[in-house]
């Protein structure tokens, strides 16, 4: 009976509670054992497709399945990987990639969101266009940019207009390939920040901005001192999700360069795929998958710490 009438109790006069014979039928039903069944379809599906394979893979990474049967080999795969200098190259590449792409996407998305946070017919028409790259399949975005970067593609044609006729093959050169893929990924992914930051901007009450303006703040000052502090939660959440998504981004990188030339774009996800499906070393790929999970878990921890800091200072 303890939780049977909490909502009404706040408002009703406490003196005369109506006598009740027992929990009403619908209350009783809410506590029936079948309530677990309701959440089973979704939870079961997610567990079957994602949860179970991930957990069983952690176990499998300690065994050797190539030597017929499952032989426990302990940390052998991990020891081999940790001795492989390519791991550190790939991790460092993933860090550069993530920071670079996130910086580009966030800048573009934030700029766009601040500029689009007003009502004009022009902006209402253009806004959906800005989100379009995000709806494009990664394969299509990748091939779009592969052709833009070709020796006689649009990029070099534009450079030609400015007198640069070098006809550089951007993706075939290991010194420019990473930057090339980063720009393409920024183009494809910036609408994520644009959308979330725009929603964040629009949730700041108009009165707050109005008040700042009446007190004599310029548009710029209002943005820096009034609006951005109120959007802190949106900014932290979007950056956290964006960093996780970017560090794990596979399609664009793999389809544009396959990780090459000479490994110059082989971030951790691309390396895993190459090990599994081009070198057919499934045990090594299993262990690498676990390492990528650890990287994501670390990123989530950082997000948790950041969340605590912003909550405390807010």
């Amino acid at each position: 009976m303890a939780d049977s009438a909490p909502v009404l109790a706040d408002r009703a006069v406490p003196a005369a509670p109506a006598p009740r014979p027992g929990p009403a039928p619908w209350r009783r039903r809410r506590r029936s054992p079948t309530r677990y069944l309701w959440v089973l379809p979704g939870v079961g599906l997610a567990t079957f497709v994602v949860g179970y394979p991930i957990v069983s893979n952690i176990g499998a990474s300690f065994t050797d399945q190539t030597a017929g049967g499952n032989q426990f080999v302990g940390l052998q795969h991990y020891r081999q990987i940790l001795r492989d200098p390519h791991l550190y190259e790939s991790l460092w590449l993933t860090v550069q990639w993530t920071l670079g792409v996130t910086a580009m996407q966030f800048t573009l998305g934030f700029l766009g969101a601040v500029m689009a946070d007003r009502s004009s017919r022009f902006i209402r028409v253009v806004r959906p266009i800005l989100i379009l790259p995000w709806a494009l399949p990664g394969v299509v975005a990748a091939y779009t940019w592969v052709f833009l970067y070709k020796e006689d593609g649009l990029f070099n044609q534009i450079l030609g207009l400015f007198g640069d006729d070098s006809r550089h093959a951007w993706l075939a050169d290991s010194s420019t390939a990473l930057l090339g893929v980063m720009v393409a990924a920024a183009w494809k992914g910036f609408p994520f920040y644009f959308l979330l930051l725009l929603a964040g901007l629009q949730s700041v009450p108009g009165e707050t901005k109005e008040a700042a303006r009446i007190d004599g703040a310029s548009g710029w000052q209002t943005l820096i001192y009034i609006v951005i502090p109120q959007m802190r939660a949106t900014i932290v959440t979007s950056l956290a999700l964006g960093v996780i998504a970017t560090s794990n981004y596979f399609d664009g990188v793999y389809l544009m360069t396959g990780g090459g030339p000479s490994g110059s774009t082989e971030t951790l996800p691309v390396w895993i795929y190459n090990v599994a499906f081009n070198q057919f070393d499934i045990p090594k790929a299993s262990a690498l998958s676990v390492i990528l999970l650890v990287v994501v878990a670390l990123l989530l921890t950082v997000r948790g710490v950041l969340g605590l800091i912003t909550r405390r200072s807010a």
Partner: protein
Amino acid sequence: MRPPLGRRVVDKAPQAVIAVIGLVVLVPMLYVVAASLRQRNVLTGSLTDFSDFGFGNYTRALQADLGRNLLNSLIASGLASAVAVAAATVTAYGFSRFTFRGARVLFWAMLLLQLIPSASLVVPLYKLWGKLGLFNSLGGLGLAYAGLSTAVCVLLVKGFVDEIPRDFDEAAAIDGCSSWGVFWRVVMPLLGPAMVAGGIFVFITTWQEFVIASSVTNDPRYYTVTVGLQAFSGEYRTDYGAILAGSVLTALPIVLVFAAFQRHFVQTVTGAVKG
């Protein structure tokens, strides 16, 4: 009297910035569409020259397997949308209306699974699907996609279920509805918009998917359109026109769905992140 020039420039600055970003977004797409229509000089034709336009590249792309690939994607993504939305709606109702020990933990654990990178999942899923005989099957791929998208759908639909007053449930229960009857006859009919939004979200995201599809199929008969396009571009390496036509064909259905339901999609994404 018109305001001074400086004032006018400042007023127009946002529009100008948006216009520049819009051009950066659109020019590559228009360039690809134009190139896909060119019979000659695919990459180098001038943007204002339409003399060699035609559909030759498109017929070549469709004569290869791309037509079948489109159909496969339609089946896998359609199946995933239906299964994910059905499972998610029941589950969202459960999480919204019933309390039990560990419900919160279970709910958040399910969402946490969503953050697991595809690249970490590819190898284990490839092994499991092989063991279960789901390799090279559109049903298997649809099931994988459904499992990957359920959590976001649950989150989305739960937001809508929470908005429906519990009085509705209780009134129906007093009138003698069973638990399932309350859900089926009272709550679910009110969830139409949420289920449509969820279905569109799943359809758009799974249509784009590449890495899972490419690892659980290796028979061209079961390739989705993204995997098919990759195989096609490997085979016809120098036929730029056909590859670009194939890219446009891959993107077109999803861009149309997106254009039609843009508002739904945007709400789903911003809602899911804020929730």
